[in-house]
Structures are given as structure tokens and as C-alpha cells.
């Protein structure tokens, strides 16, 4: 690779870098649990909650049903109010007559019945339409993680805090779920196939190694596995499993029978040893998991939260890590060294030309096998220790 001309300059620290995914044995996890619209909060500050404790509840206004009364009665819109049997605010049941038309001494009779249960919301003399509002739909939000209510958000929800192990994935599908952590394979290099899954895994959060195969996903659904965590997945297996190709990485609402969390990326990729060993040490613990991923605007990554009270995070305070310095452990996240792990060797200041002929900011990484390679700074992420 060509080097910049002249005297070599290096920076002591770099701030423009991609923060790594979190793999923590213990940290204070806080989750804000909010209703999408205002409602009633059912917990108080200091309350202890479990995975499924309901934190807040509200009612979503029912759907409107538009009834074309003028059309159905064969009258002009402005005449509709005259023939209405119900007025705005009246409750109606499905089948109730809401408008009634008579002409020619009763020879012509037409009725309009309510197609739904609800309340008359409006009667229009311009369009002849009547809007019936269906009953409201109850909406609840649960705690998702067990812990303590540390803050109540009036009319919205609460913040729950717990001490837990925390693993972020890079991509997932499916929403929030719970289950017991179970190791499906012995090493992070091993593939998770259907043979690794049995009826005993019902409700579990199953941890695989380098790849989860399509037959494993299908077996997981069949058995009733809550969540599968693996290093990688093949693009075509994911497409087949979901029934459609992923276009934009905004996920979490898929209904595919289980939640899937990928920790490294697409293809066969060994799960990072740190993550694998962490799961292993919490084998048998109950955990919460969520596959929801949103990469644009406010990055949201999939996660597994394993609450425990065995040990606590040593350093406190906020998570904004310091910059990247020589010695910082990093993972390379793009070809030609995709997946390789190493430590920052140096941070040259001057732009360097890479194989594409682009001049970019680079860093030198000492790989685990001792090789020193040069890669664009944009193509590494920090491994948080």
C-alpha cells in the first residue's frame, strides 16, 4: 500500500471513529417504557417490577367507520339530519337503525343500520356521511426488564433500572421477548443447525456460534424458541425465512415466530469470543431480548439483557468512551480484513492512498497473528473492554 510522502506524522488520539457494540458483563441498564399516546402510569418511583409487570395503560381512540347515509337512503346530503334516528354523541350497537326514510305514505321505506358498535361522532349535511367511532382499544406497556422504577414519566410511562449483563447485536428481526439463556453450541466457530435444537429449548434464548442456518431457524419456530443469537446468517436464508428480502434496516415488527439477533454480520462469521463467553457464563439465566434494529436516525441495535446481582460495574458514570489510542482493541468491519480483531498500532495523521486510489484517514492495526495492516479509520470499530 502506498505511503504518504515526507515525514510521517501520527496522532496520539482519534475522536472520529465508530463506537463498538456493547458486550458488558455488568452495567446499569435503564429502559424508558413509554406509551405512544398519553395514558395512566400504574407504577410509582421505587417500585420493584418484573419482566411482565404492566407499567402504563391507555386507550387508543377507536377506528372511525364512515357510513354514506345520503347515498344509502337515496336522499340529498342536506336532508340527512332530518332522517337521522340518532344524534351526535349517541351510543349505537351493530344493527341499530341510525337513519330511517319514509316516503309516499310509507310505501317507500329505507333504513340505515350501524355496521359496528360505537358512538355517533359526526353527521355531515355536505357529504351526507355519518362517522361512527368504534370503542377505544386498550393499550399497555410492560416493564420488559425486571428492576426498580427510578423515574415516573407522568401520563407516559416509567424508567426501569437494573443491574445486568448487556450484549448488543448488529442486526436483528422480531420484537421484545424473554427466555432462559441456553448455549446451543460449544464454540463460537460452530454453526447452529437444526440438529442442535430440541423440544427442551421451548421458550429459550438460544446462543449459536458462527452461523445460524435456515433449517435451524425453522426448527426453532417449530419448537417455540423465543430468540436465537448467532454470529452471522446467510442473506438468502434470512430472505427465505422472512418470506421477503430486507430493504431498509428498520426492523422489530416482523412476525416470524421468533426473535433473531446477529452479532457480527452477514455471512459465516465467528461470534466474538467476548460475547460468546459472556453468554456461556450466564447459561441458565433468564433474560430479555429485542431484535429491533434501526440504523438511520438514532441508531437502535438489537440487544440481550441478562439481569443479575452477582457483581457490578466497576467504573461508574456515563458511557461516552475516550478516544482511540495506540493499544485500543478494535475489530475491522470491512473487506479485506473483515472480522479480524487487533489493537491500534498507530494513527497516521496524513491522508493515505488505499487500493481504490482514494486518499483517506487510516490507522495501523496489529492483528492477533502479529501482522500489521493499514485500514481506513471508517472501517474499524472499538471493542469496549
Amino acid at each position: 500500500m502506498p505511503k504518504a510522502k515526507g515525514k510521517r506524522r501520527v496522532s496520539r488520539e482519534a475522536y472520529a471513529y465508530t463506537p463498538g457494540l456493547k458486550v458488558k458483563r455488568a452495567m446499569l441498564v435503564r429502559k424508558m417504557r413509554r406509551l405512544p399516546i398519553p395514558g395512566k402510569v400504574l407504577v410509582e418511583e421505587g417500585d420493584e417490577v418484573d419482566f411482565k409487570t404492566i407499567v402504563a395503560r391507555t386507550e387508543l381512540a377507536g377506528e372511525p367507520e364512515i357510513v354514506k347515509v345520503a347515498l344509502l337512503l337515496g336522499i340529498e346530503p342536506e336532508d340527512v339530519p332530518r332522517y337521522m334516528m340518532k344524534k351526535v354523541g349517541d351510543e349505537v350497537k351493530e344493527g341499530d337503525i341510525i337513519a330511517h326514510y319514509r316516503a309516499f305514505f310509507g310505501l317507500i321505506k329505507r333504513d340505515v343500520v350501524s355496521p359496528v358498535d360505537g358512538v355517533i361522532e359526526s353527521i355531515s349535511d355536505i357529504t351526507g356521511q355519518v362517522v361512527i367511532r368504534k370503542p377505544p382499544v386498550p393499550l399497555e406497556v410492560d416493564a420488559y426488564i425486571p428492576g426498580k422504577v427510578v423515574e415516573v414519566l407522568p401520563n407516559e410511562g416509567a424508567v426501569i433500572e437494573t443491574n445486568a449483563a448487556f450484549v448488543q447485536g448488529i442486526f436483528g428481526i422480531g420484537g421484545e421477548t424473554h427466555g432462559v439463556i441456553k448455549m446451543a453450541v460449544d464454540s463460537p466457530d460452530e454453526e447452529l443447525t437444526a440438529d442442535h435444537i430440541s423440544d427442551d429449548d421451548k421458550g429459550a434464548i438460544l446462543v449459536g456460534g458462527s452461523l445460524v442456518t435456515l433449517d435451524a431457524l425453522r426448527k426453532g419456530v417449530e419448537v417455540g424458541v423465543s430468540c436465537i443469537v448467532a454470529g452471522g446468517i446467510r442473506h438468502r436464508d434470512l430472505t427465505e425465512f422472512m418470506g421477503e428480502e430486507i430493504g431498509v434496516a428498520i426492523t422489530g415488527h416482523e412476525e416470524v415466530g421468533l426473535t433473531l439477533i446477529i452479532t457480527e454480520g452477514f455471512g459465516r462469521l465467528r461470534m466474538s469470543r467476548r460475547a460468546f463467553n459472556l453468554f456461556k457464563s450466564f447459561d441458565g439465566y433468564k433474560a430479555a431480548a429485542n431484535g429491533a434494529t434501526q440504523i438511520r436516525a438514532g441508531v437502535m441495535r438489537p440487544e440481550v439483557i441478562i439481569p443479575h446481582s452477582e457483581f457490578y460495574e466497576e467504573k461508574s458514570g456515563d458511557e461516552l468512551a475516550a478516544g482511540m489510542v495506540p493499544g485500543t482493541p478494535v475489530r475491522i468491519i470491512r473487506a479485506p480484513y473483515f472480522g479480524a480483531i487487533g489493537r491500534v498500532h498507530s494513527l497516521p495523521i496524513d491522508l493515505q492512498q488505499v487500493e481504490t486510489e482514494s486518499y483517506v484517514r487510516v490507522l495501523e492495526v496489529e492483528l492477533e497473528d502479529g501482522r500489521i495492516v493499514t485500514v481506513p479509520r471508517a472501517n474499524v470499530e472499538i471493542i469496549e473492554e
Partner: protein
Amino acid sequence: MARLRKPKEEMKYILATDVGSTTTKARFFERKPEGWRFVIAGEAPTTVEAPYEDVTLGVRNAVREVEELTGHKILAEDGSGIVVPFDGERGVDLYCTTSSAGGGLQMMVAGLIKTMTAESANRAALGAGAIVMDVIAQDDGRPVYKKIQRIRSLRPDMILLAGGTDGGATTHVMEIAEMLKAAEPKPRLGLGYKLPIVYAGNRDLRPQIKKLLGEVFALTIVDNIRPVLEVENTEPARRAIHELFMEHVMSHAPGYLKLMKWTDIDIMPTPAGEGMAMQLIAKVFEKNVLGVGLGGATTNVYSVFEGKFVRSVSANLGMSYSICNVMKTAGIENIMRWLPFEMDEEEVASRLMNKMIRPTTIPQTLDDLIVEHSVAREALRLGLEHHKTIATRLKGAKIERTISDMFEQALAETYIDLMKIDIIAGTGGLLSHAPRRVQSMLILTDAFQPEGITWMFQDSVFMMPHLGVLSTVYWEAAWQIFDKDCLVRLGTVIAPRGVANKGDPVMTVEIEMPNGETLTEEMHFGEIKRIELPEREEAKVTISPRRGFDVGRGPGKRVEGTAMGGVVGILLDARGRPLQLPENDKERRETLLKWFLDIDMYPEDKLRELV
């Protein structure tokens, strides 16, 4: 509205920013003896999300970079923002900004007839720089309850309601309005304010609309978008959208109230700024322009055709966040057809999926770069296809048809004719960062397939939105910077319409070079050739196409024109329109390799290693 703190002729420094969804980009301009020039760029991550939730932090960081690089102080010492005007030591004389942070301006559009008022309303919203989430029309084929469910699930920033000509339909328009009200759409940013709605329909219904929607929504009433079927009047709606964007939407986004105080000019959605820049090109050269902003999440296509400006946005076609949607929409085989080497389909898909989940990474290897360039062609191609569905003739208006039209299978829906497009201009990360400029020129050429004589331009370091917003208050400065520092002249593509067999003669091109020498080039089918012609120089060209080939005046007709020089020069493109790629896989790869080598597209040794 804009109020300048200093007379234009006394201004010395201008600062413009674009608050993008990921990066805030500051551009610093200075008046030099030769005129206004671009000085330096500063960039920093956008801070619209938690934990910051204040865009001005990102703006401040980007400006601080400018300060460090130039030594010129811009920010107030007390942290109150940007010093305007320049006080002799500190500050700038003018500060303006565009914004697309937090997903830009997201709108829902409703009209009566899908192909008439709803289509016009859609064009107006797009022209104002919005992402249109859905277009609701009475005849859109969905039952009412489905439409209601859809409206309830959307969280738009604003709604545009059209319908009926003046004095025309009333009842059906009110039905749409009643449905909107019944569905109770909620604004995206916070529940504590009324959702803005612009009514641009039948004038006669204004009192009823006011009565129905006035209390529940923040209602603005403007002139009808289709006063008569033959006329589309999008300007009043577009202006109202911009005003509401500032008043309602921006003021609810984190930190924008502060940012609005910093700037003297209304904050404009980024695509609206980009659109202004495209219009500037059309205005100065007095030509038809096709422009494109190929971003990470979206592709915006702009056309200024015979004075009519239209913008389309393909919200999910992009080079990072949305890269897999390009694969999904185009089909992976269409991406792979641009690769001159063999690569397993699963490998290509994995690379794109991995780019999507780690969108800030950049290609380090040549094969990775070529894969991204292949995706870019497809994103652009799809973006243009989409644009053609927006840039259409007015439906419902009477058009006089001649006998020949009837033979041409009715009138083509779009009026975009690549033969009549004189200029193509591109902006966006992938195009601006292409290691060789010829790469962006060929990518644009392969995707858009210009016909006849087409001048090709590109944004140098992404400042079209900045200059677009600046042009609204200080046209001369914007143009001077645009011309000298922003608009890279790539060169000219000369391509005849038509196809033939490989090796058949296609055209003879005579080029009168600036040094007086005349080059005569014989082009055969399937060939592409690059001829050097430096920037700021021009050459007279005479193109004599063979029978069956058209360069603007009909098949076989000779055309004279002017080729604009550029960093690439002239591309003589006899690869066919539509462009022909061999069906046979091996032959296709060999053809691509030959084209790439012929125009010096990639480093030769590395390229040969790959194939």
C-alpha cells in the same frame, strides 16, 4: 423572511451549513479580489438525537473546525451562537442553513383524483423538498377503512389537501376532508401541537373546510393547485409548505428554535436547497437540466425541462442505509451485470447487507469499490424511472393529438426526453468521492443513458444545498462560488440513439479542438472512447450518424454542436441507446473490462488481477 445585516457589496464572509441526518456540513466562503470563493469545509456529527438533542451543538462543532482550519473566529465567545455581521475581528456577514436531520420534512398528500389533483399535490409537496409518505385519493383503489388505517399509522409533519377545480367538485372533496378528520392523524414531532394542513383545493369550499378542519388542525388555505384542469399552480402550496416547515415542524425539532435565531434566512429542507442549485444551472446555461443527489438514504432527481422544475425523491434508494433496498428493487442480477469479474451472488448480497448495517464504512479494495459503483448505477436508474412517473404531462387536460401521435401508442406519459436533456449534474457522497472523476461520469452515463450531446457536471465537495439556499438571498455570490468551486465540469457525452450489431459503423464525429486541429473519429457499435478536452475549453463537433442512429435531428441526420471540456473530456459512446450489454456472461465481463480499460476507469493492473 430574510433580512440582511449588511449591504451585499460590503459583505466579506459567508457561512452556510447543512444539518444532515448524520453529518452537519459547514462551508465557509470569502470575497476575494476575483470574487466570492469557497475557502474551507468543516464537518461534525449531527446532534439531533439523544443524548444531545440540540442541533446547534453539531453546527457549533462543524463551525469550530472551520475556525481551527482558517484561524478566523466565527462563534461568539459567550456561546450565544454565530456572530453576524463580521465585526472586524469575528463573525460572518451572512449565515444560512438547510436541514434534513431527523428524517427531513415528511408529508402526507390527499387529493380527489389520483392522476389529477392528487398527482399535482404530490408534485407540489415533492417540489417543496418533502418526503411524501403516501398519496390518498378517492379513486386510489383502497377501501375507505384501509385508507383510514393508513392515515392513522402515518405520523406526518404536515398534510397537503387538494381536490376539485375552482367551481368544480364539492361533495367528494368534502368526503376526503371528513375522512382525514375522522382518522385523527397525529404529528410526528410531539403530541402537544396541532398538525399543520394546507388546503389547496376548490376555492368554493373554503368556508366548509375552515369549519370542518379549522379547529382540529393548524389550517392554511392557499390558491387551488388545479384551478382549471389545464393549469397546475403549485407555487402557493409550495410556499405555504416552506413557511409551515419553519413555523411548526422545525420549531419542534430539538434545538431548532435556537438555530432559527442564529440565521437570518429561513431554514430550508436540504433537497429544496439542492433543487435551487439545479435551477441555478438551468438558468445560467439556459438549458434543460437533469440533476441527481445520490445520498446514503435517498435519491433525489431534479429536472428543469423547458423551464418546468420537478423533483422526485426515492426515499429508500441510497448507497448506505438503503443500499439493500436498491438490491431488492433492482434485483441482484441487475447489480451484478455491471461487474467485470466473477463474484458469487451470496457474496455480493452479504457485502451489501454488511454495508447497510455498518453504513459509515468505505471500500478499501477495488472489487468492493466496483460493487458499490454497480449499485450506484441501479439506484440512479431506478431514481430516474421514478422521476419519469412524477414529471408527467397534466392528465385530464385536453391535448391535441396528431395522426402520428396515435401511431406512437398514445402520448408518452413523461415529458422527460433524454435527447432534449442538455445537462446532467450529480451530487452526493459516492459521486463526489469517486477516486477518478471518469468513474462518476460513466456511472451517470450508464444509469441515465444521455442521448445526443450532453454536458456533464458534478458537485465538488457537496455544497449544492448550501449554495441553493444562499442563492435565494444573494444570487451573485452563490453563482460565483458555484461556478468556480462547486461545479466540476466533467465533460461531454456524445451518444446516438439506436442499436446495431457489434462492430457496425455508428457515427463519424469531427471535433475542432481549441488548438485548431480537427480530429475525425469513426465509432463502431459497442465502442466507447475518451478524448481529452480540458476544463473551460470548448470544441465544435459535427456528428454524422449512420442510418438508424439519431443524435437529435432524426435518424441519419447530421448535427453540429458544442462539446464542453472537463476533467474527463469527451466520451464518444456508441454502446447503443438503449445501452446494450451482451447476454452471454463471459462476453459481458469482457466487454465491461474493455470499456473500463478504454476510458481509464480504474487502475489497470489491479483491474486485470480481479478478472
